[in-house]
């Protein structure tokens, strides 16, 4: 049945599609399997050397995952029979099949995936229900209130904040409310350029279906292949092309949410209102603690006529940041502009597929020569920005020139469309790489923050260094991979993404070390003026810092909303507060 559709083509203990994964083949060459991505089926000749040199690992030492889920390890469901009965009467699909419950018991934090790979199953939901429409959700919530059952909304399952973990202290029956069947576009309003969609729709499906009508939302978070509209609303998601289309809070016109108190929604779709604090802002970022988002009206735009990728090489990260800052100052940021540090630049190179012609490799060599020898860029300092322009052709070309002119003032050299395009493609496959690492004693994670412009450089340096230092102090044998990139620009600051990974051979409790390091890295972010989260959300992973982040009064405000909307904690995932 379609209930299990996604679960059937996706990994149960790793990222993404089952058919797509990195591996080292018998010759020791890196390879990406499957057919879904541009990189699929390609040989990556430099990956092995980079991997071994960066992590100090050897392909001899493997740590393979448990191949299949041991169903007997899944705790038996704790079901409230009359609740299940009444659901059946109401015609709502439900299942307590162990695989389905395990699949919905986690997001993609390292510790969650690490445990699954080792075959360790913790607390999982007792039941999965698949509402088909808004009214089904109303029914489910009513019944949950009636029988005091704990509901946990589940969208795309891409959370990286421990938001989907069942609270250990929860003794009630936990029901995972999977929104995947509520995935229809209900209407498109071309006069107002809005679309009304059920919140369970997955990002790529929404975009594809809108494209067929000549529209797009333009909302493209890195997880858009798997994440859902409802999830975006619940976490305050951000999209790669927010410079043109805005983040989720800019895109949303109307939200319908079912809560234990009833349905919350606005009475009209006016583009802006002065009606007290915007109730949408209680919903956006509520992380499933207040109710289930069932339907959303979003802005749409006609598909852009023209798209062009680009890239710029800078002599060092500092110059790159200065350039991005200037671009933001002049408010001429392309649809997307991202700046990778040197380590990520080198990492990008490691993922270059085998070149098919001597001519291409000759050209690559020439480019490298030009940049390092002729322009005097230090290969261990240079860094690269990737760009994506969108719009009508003439304007794009004009815009492109403007950006490259600014870049030139900061020593930036245009480095071609290919590099840019590959950078964005890597965004989607990079998540698969962690699974490869975990096959060879390497664990890692990414996390993000937002920070005022004047602190970007200091924050990047200090956090990267803190990671290195903490790893060393905790007995990590080989220096970690600690790297960052600036992924979004704003008027007053930027979004920064960190990646860190290390070789855990020789550590008794690698997960604990990992968690401590991530914790200290977050402390460092906060000490350097960074936010608790730019778009991943708080979940349970970052809850301890909420009071500091929003003040005691702020936290109290949120708590009192929760108390009013859901006094019995039916939406008991215990995120955020």
């Amino acid at each position, binding site marked *: 049945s379609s209930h299990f559709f996604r679960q059937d083509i996706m990994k149960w203990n790793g990222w993404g599609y089952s058919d797509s994964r990195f591996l080292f083949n018998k010759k020791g060459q890196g390879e990406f399997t499957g057919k879904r991505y541009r990189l699929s089926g390609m040989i990556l000749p430099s990956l092995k050397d980079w991997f071994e040199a960066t992590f100090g690992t050897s392909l001899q030492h493997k740590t393979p995952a448990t191949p299949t889920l041991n169903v007997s390890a899944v705790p038996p469901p704790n079901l409230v029979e009359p609740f299940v009965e009444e659901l059946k009467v109401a015609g709502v699909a439900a299942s307590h099949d162990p695989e389905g419950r395990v699949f919905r018991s986690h997001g993609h934090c390292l510790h969650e995936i690490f445990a699954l790979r080792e075959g360790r199953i913790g607390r999982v939901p007792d039941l999965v229900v698949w509402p088909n429409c808004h009214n089904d959700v109303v029914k489910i919530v009513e019944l949950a209130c009636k029988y005091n059952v704990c509901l946990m909304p589940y969208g795309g399952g891409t959370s990286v904040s421990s938001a989907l973990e069942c609270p250990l202290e929860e003794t009630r029956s936990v029901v995972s409310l999977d929104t995947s069947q509520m995935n229809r576009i209900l209407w498109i309003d071309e006069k107002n350029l809005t679309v009304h969609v059920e919140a369970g729709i997955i990002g790529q499906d929404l975009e594809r279906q809108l494209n067929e009508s000549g529209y797009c939302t333009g909302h493209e978070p890195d997880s858009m292949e798997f994440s859902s509209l409802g999830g975006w609303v619940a976490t305050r998601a951000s999209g790669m092309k927010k410079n043109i289309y805005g983040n989720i809070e800019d895109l949303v016109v109307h939200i319908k949410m079912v809560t234990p108190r009833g349905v919350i929604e606005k009475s009209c779709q006016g583009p802006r209102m002065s009606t007290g604090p915007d109730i949408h802002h209680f919903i956006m970022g509520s992380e499933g603690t207040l109710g289930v988002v069932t339907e959303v009206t979003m802005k749409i735009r006609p598909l852009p006529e023209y798209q062009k990728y680009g890239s710029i090489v800078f002599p060092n990260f500092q110059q790159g940041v200065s350039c991005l800052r200037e671009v933001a100052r002049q408010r001429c940021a392309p649809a997307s502009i991202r700046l990778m540090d040197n380590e990520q630049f080198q990492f990008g190179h490691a993922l270059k597929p085998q070149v098919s012609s001597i001519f291409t490799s000759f050209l690559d060599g020439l480019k490298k020569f030009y940049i390092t020898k002729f322009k005097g860029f230090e290969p261990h300092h240079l860094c690269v920005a990737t760009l994506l322009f969108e719009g009508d052709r003439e304007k794009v070309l004009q815009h492109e020139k403007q950006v490259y002119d600014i870049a030139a003032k900061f020593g930036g050299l245009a480095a071609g469309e290919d590099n840019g395009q590959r950078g964005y493609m890597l965004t989607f496959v990079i998540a698969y790489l962690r699974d490869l690492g975990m096959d060879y004693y390497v664990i890692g994670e990414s996390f993000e923050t937002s920070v005022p412009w*004047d*602190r970007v450089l*200091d*924050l990047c*340096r*200090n956090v990267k*260094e*803190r990671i290195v230092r903490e790893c060393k102090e905790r007995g990590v044998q080989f220096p970690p991979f600690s790297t960052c990139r600036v992924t979004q620009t704003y008027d007053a600051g930027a979004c920064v993404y960190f990646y860190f990974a290390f070789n855990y051979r020789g550590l008794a409790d690698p997960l604990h070390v990992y968690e401590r390091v991530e914790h200290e890295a977050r402390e460092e972010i*906060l*000490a*350097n*003026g960074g936010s608790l989260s730019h778009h991943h959300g708080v979940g349970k992973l970052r809850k301890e810092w909420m009071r*500091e982040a929003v003040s005691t009064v702020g936290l109290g405000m949120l708590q009192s909303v929760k108390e009013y909307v859901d006094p019995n904690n039916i939406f008991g995932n215990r995120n955020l507060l």
Partner: protein
Amino acid sequence: MASVLYSPRDPGLKKRDELEDMLEERRRSSDARHALRCYAPAVYKGLAPREVSALRGAVLQSDALQHVIGQVSAECGERRELVQEEAAHLLDEMAHRLRLGTVRFFAYVLSKVFKTLFRSVRVNEEGVQRLQQAIQDHPVVLLPSHRSYMDFLMMSYILYTYDLALPVIAAGMDFMSMKVVGEMLRMSGAFFIRRSFGGDKLYWAVFSEYVKTMLRTGYAPIEFFLEGTRSRTGKSLTPKTGLLNIVMEPFFKGEVFDIHLVPVSISYDRILEESLYARELLGVPKPKETTSGLLKARQILREDYGVMHVYFGHPVSVRSLAQGRVKRSQYNLVPRHIPQRPCLAAQALVGEAAFRLVRLQEQAMVLRPWTLVATLLLQNPDGMDLPVLEEQAAWLRRLALSFGAFLDWPDCKPCREVVGAGLALHKNLARVSGGRVRLAVAETPGVGQTAEELAFDRAVGVLSCASYRNQILHVFIRPALLSVALRTANSSRKDEVYTCFNFLWTVFSNEFILCPGASVQDFEEACYLLGKCCAVQESQQDIVMSEGGHATLAFLRALLDPFLQGYQVVCQYLCKETEENLRENKFVPAARNFALQLILAGTLKCYEALSSDLQKNALAALVQLEAVTKVKVGDQVTLKVNRRAASSLEDMLGGRIPTQKPVHARL
């Protein structure tokens, strides 16, 4: 790494590095080649060194300085450009102009000078290696102790010799008056700060931004003296926190990942300025530093100054110090270039760090046998038979070692030889005749010498000698305070002994390096040390002298005696002073004169009571204990004396009345 600051309970167990003579190589190979050799130090994160002019531009254009320039221009209605010019002028007056040529010149000259002055200059090379690593990883602040003008010349010379990045050094403006030398120092990395610029916002901004810019960019290690000035007494001075505040701020504001503070302990067998200091303490004004004055110092070159020791301590990480103490996020809400008063926690941390760092300096200061000999001679003004002196020196050596002193006493040599070597080197201070040793002070007035002049002459001898004894005081101070407290306390109950201890501890908190708020810790340390050398016995409730503890306790009490007497004299003076509005700047000469009269009358034997350093410290203590109040009238400060309080303080110090609780602290 925070534990670096907290010495282990048993300081004797501290591991110390070996010291090597760095002049040995100089004596074997050409100084000219040394001065001209390839100098390529490892620098911070491998960054290319910045030009002096680039540094100037960076400071003048910095947001922080521009902000203050804007403020100042608005406040005094001056055109912005004029204020900017003024700032540039201040910066030029201040800034160093480090040039390798000058450094090479110094390397040549100083090689010659040091080889003439010192038998050897011994350095812990492991410490140098640690420093070299630290310089590459983090901005480094060098914090040497300050006993002589030689200190910073030697620091730069050592760093040059070991191929380390040369420091830029905060120096007092007084050097500037020495035209040529001042400029030479400037070109070898010194930058000059006015002694007082309290209210001058612009000056402060230029100065602090200059230091911070160098620090943030890892331009060079920054060197300054926590004590602020050369200690004339051989004791460490209460640290000043102004510059330490400035250099720690870039860490608090997240501008650097960490900053490493490296305490450096420099000690001398003989201090070049020895008798000069004693005269200064007795009120002969400090000669203005002039180039010709320095040339006169040529005769200095003919003397033997023995061995010099330089010990580079473990770098102390500011990050580790601040861990859990200072919330860096407090700076999140205001742009960092706008000056912000550090929070109380940060202020407390800096203050505490300053004291701890000075203690680290003290603890790594190499002590020579002579310091023990000088101590004994001062306690026996009538002289000692040489064998007795030797025997007591050997005893004192064991005591010092058990208290953790960093004593450089050659194991292989007989005690007689060791003591003899010290006496030989310091023949100007101690004289051996007829098998008896005594301080080299005149007994009877010389021809045409007044009794006053004789007294001052003697005082010079005593104070010079005391400057060596003072070097070891930090080893004994806590047990010594306890020894006195044991004598004055009404009972042997610990809490009563502590009350007395805490009283003395408070009174002497300006005299010795006693970390604020650490009196309980210090008391425990003192109890532990005296217990360890079997001088006292501790039980749950009580602390009593052991049977064999008499000699130790008596020695320790005698060690404090000059200070106890000196402070009492100051109290007496203040009680007897009839002038209602005593001006602060008249206090020292008047107190000195009072003490002098007592000495001339034969009622006071303690020449150290003449020391202006002691008098100033005593006054500070009296102010702190509210026996004296400072009243500001116009631009004059006058002292208002609470005679009853001063008198009872005098009696308490003399052990004549029991200690009342001046300060409340919990044991």
